[in-house]
């Protein structure tokens, strides 16, 4: 048997690090990828501000409330649809204005009716709300109107959350300012009212009940008897425009496809190079490696499986007798004599062992022969069927017997 040398703590750490570094590296990569994906993920979902959406980001609640109040509510999925319906007495709410193309913006500019722009970008502002300029993002939980706009003063405090601020042109009504830059701007452009709202949050299902959000939303959106909610569809918005119907492969430079083809083909000679072995694999004709003690182990498992405590106890007793008897100065053959064969010999052994140990005869007789004291001292039972004597009643008994036999042997050896 080879005894293993205890490695030092440093070696253990080094070995653990070497075995774990692959896993650590993979985990690190996963974390980095996760962070990157989370950072690249758009903060807006496709169905945000959609009047059909019941999710926290949708605006179905607002639409339903307006409808129940008798306000006409139409949903337009593209700009041409919206412009055809727009007219005097309508208000066109441009949700997701970033989806509008340049031509959409031109079309919208020519329509009559009021406009409500929700979080418009620079391009949209210059086209539909000239004079208003984007300032920067802010965050506020409660904003006060601080203006004369009736819809805003009636609504009172509004929870904007993340919101854009704007620079309002002179003559415009500027509400909810943050250090002088308003979040809500309303003014007249070529005979119609254009409202720029710096946050989508007051309109959404999730935040409609916060502060005065609902009131502000209804006052702004429901200002005219007919609402046209323009939420441009990405597909429709881009159809026929410069992006076209071209797929990813059309957009790739021409050499890239050939490059990938080349890579695929290059794999073939590399695979053939690595796959060709230099000569055959030689199998070693091994000798038998079965342990010689396998039969003993098998017998032990059989004993255990069948709870053969009697047989196990008798084997232990026979082994102990075999070692103890020569120590007592008796012939070795006495060890194999069972009480049923010669009670006198067995009694002699028990007496001698009891004299040399601190155990009494009863204990020694039970341990070595599995018999009671009465049977030892008076008369040995004859014709007993089980030569092994008493069987331990449970596993603890067997363990105790093994320990007792060890103790007897040790004491006899030392006496």
């Amino acid at each position, binding site marked *: *048997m080879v005894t293993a040398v205890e490695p030092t703590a440093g070696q253990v750490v080094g070995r653990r690090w070497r075995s774990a570094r692959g896993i650590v590296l993979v985990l690190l990569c996963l974390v980095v990828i996760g962070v990157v994906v989370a950072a690249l993920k758009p903060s807006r979902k496709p169905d945000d501000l959609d009047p059909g959406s019941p999710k926290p980001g949708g605006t179905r609640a607002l639409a339903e409330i307006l409808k129940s109040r008798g306000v006409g509510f139409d949903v337009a999925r593209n700009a041409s649809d919206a412009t055809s319906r727009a007219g005097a007495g309508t208000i066109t709410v441009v949700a997701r204005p970033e989806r509008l193309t340049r031509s959409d913006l031109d079309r919208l500019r020519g329509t009559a009716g009021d406009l409500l722009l929700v979080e418009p970008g620079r391009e949209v502002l210059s086209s539909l709300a000239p004079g208003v300029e984007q300032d920067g993002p802010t965050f506020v939980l409660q904003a006060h109107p601080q203006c004369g706009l009736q819809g805003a003063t009636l609504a009172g405090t509004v929870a904007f959350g993340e919101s854009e601020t704007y620079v309002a042109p002179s003559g415009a009504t500027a509400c909810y300012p943050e250090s002088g830059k308003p979040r809500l701007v309303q003014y007249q452009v070529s005979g119609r009212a254009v409202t720029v709202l710096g946050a989508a949050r007051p309109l959404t299902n999730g935040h409609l009940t916060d502060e005065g959000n609902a009131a502000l939303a209804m006052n702004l959106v429901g200002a005219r008897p007919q609402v046209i909610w323009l939420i441009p569809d990405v597909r429709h918005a881009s159809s026929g425009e410069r992006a076209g119907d071209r797929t990813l492969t059309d957009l790739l*430079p*021409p*050499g*890239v*496809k*050939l*490059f990938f*083809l*080349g*890579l695929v*083909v*290059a794999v*073939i*000679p*590399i695979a*053939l*190079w690595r796959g*060709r072995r*230099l*000569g*055959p694999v*030689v*199998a*070693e*004709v091994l*000798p*038998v*490696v*079965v*342990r*010689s*003690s*396998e*039969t*003993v*182990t098998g*017998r*032990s*498992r059989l*004993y*255990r499986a069948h709870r053969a405590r009697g*047989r*196990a*106890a008798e*084997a*232990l007793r*026979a*082994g102990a007798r*075999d070692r103890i008897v020569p120590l007592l100065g008796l012939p070795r053959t006495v060890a194999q004599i069972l009480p049923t064969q010669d009670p006198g010999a067995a009694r002699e052994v028990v007496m001698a062992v009891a004299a040399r140990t601190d155990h009494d005869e009863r204990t020694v007789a039970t341990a070595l022969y599995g018999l009671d004291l009465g049977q030892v001292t008076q008369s040995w039972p004859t014709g007993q069927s089980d030569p092994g004597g008493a069987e331990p009643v449970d*596993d603890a008994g*067997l*363990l105790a017997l*093994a*320990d007792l036999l*060890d103790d007897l042997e040790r004491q006899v050896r030392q006496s």
Partner: protein
Amino acid sequence: MALTGRLGLLALVAAFVPLLVPSGAVLLGLWGLLLLGVVIDLCLAGNVRALRFHREGDTRVRLGEKANAGLIVENTGKRRVKAVLRDVWPPSAGVSPRTAKINVPAGERRRIDQTFTPTRRGDREAVTVVVRSVGPLGLAARQLSRSAPRTLRVLPAFPSRRHLPSRLARLRELTGLHSTMIRGQGTEFDSLREYVVGDDVRSIDWRATARRNDVVVRTWRPERDRRLYLVLDTGRTSAGRVGDIPRLDCSMDAALLLAALASRAGDRVDLLAYDRTVRARCENASRTGLLSEMVEAMAPLEPALIESDAAGMVSAIMSRVRRRSLVVLLTELNPAAFEEGLLPLLPGLTARHLVMIAAVSDPMVDEMAVARGDLAAVYDASAAERARADRRRLTAELRSYGVEVVDAPPDRIAPALADAYLALKAAGRL
């Protein structure tokens, strides 16, 4: 045929070309060039068939030692052969280097130095020699296996050699080379000599004293020219692993020590390995060549997974050994195998010969017998006690037949067997 890494690398480089020159024709052209290179290489690569292989160096090595050998590659072809060569051996032959680069001009020969560090006893056969001959461009190679037969015989290690000097010293004491000859140290009549003070008076030969004027004593010496017949049982019981090696290897070690000792003591030693047939034999060896012949005979032996044929073994012994001998049977004390096989035949054998049985016991069983702690350990202990009791019973029964039994764990079996032999010799029982 085999491709090289260079071809793969070039194909990879070619894949990047379309990024600069986006043209399918250029890519196809590059592939065509590579294919042409492969064809040229295959045509111009050195001819592997024209290679001749010769081997030289050690054919025998003791287990645990190194053998040096050489593989000579002769190029009888017309072109230079630049190649990677692998001499294929079983893993336990421990050949090094595994692969070698060769560059043999036409008509010349080159030698590859090899060392073998075998890890197992027995015969190791060279499987084949694989040559991968690379073409001039290094893009493709011709690969072929050629046979170059060779057998490396790995001899038993004989680790119990270290016990030999002490046993030889004991033997010299017996033969009287060290101490004075006194009666009781030998049993064979040697010579008569004059009595000197200090001699045992019991050894005075009165008859001879009466013929001469001086008191004459007999001197004795241990018997010489006795015969030992060692029988190795190579059946299934010899296959079990004891410690880290098969029981058969332990038995061989013990047999070698006994043979070395007995041959120095002037006895004749023969060896027979038997399971159902004769596996190996070493008979009538000269005194000096005995050990090497025995080692040679033992080297290729492997345990056979069959029940030994005791009747066949006994009849083989009886037919081979006419004179009274010490028959040493190296086997395992397996009660089941013994009771059915050898035990009924023993009286016939002991009537003609002195029989000694040497068995390797398993130290694992002794470890299990003292195991305590939990239930499994105690059941293990009881099973081990049972196994030991069976063994003791069998030993007692064998002794009742007049058989000498040596039962020892693997690290002590060889000296124990040697001691038993010396005891027999001292007692004059051979």
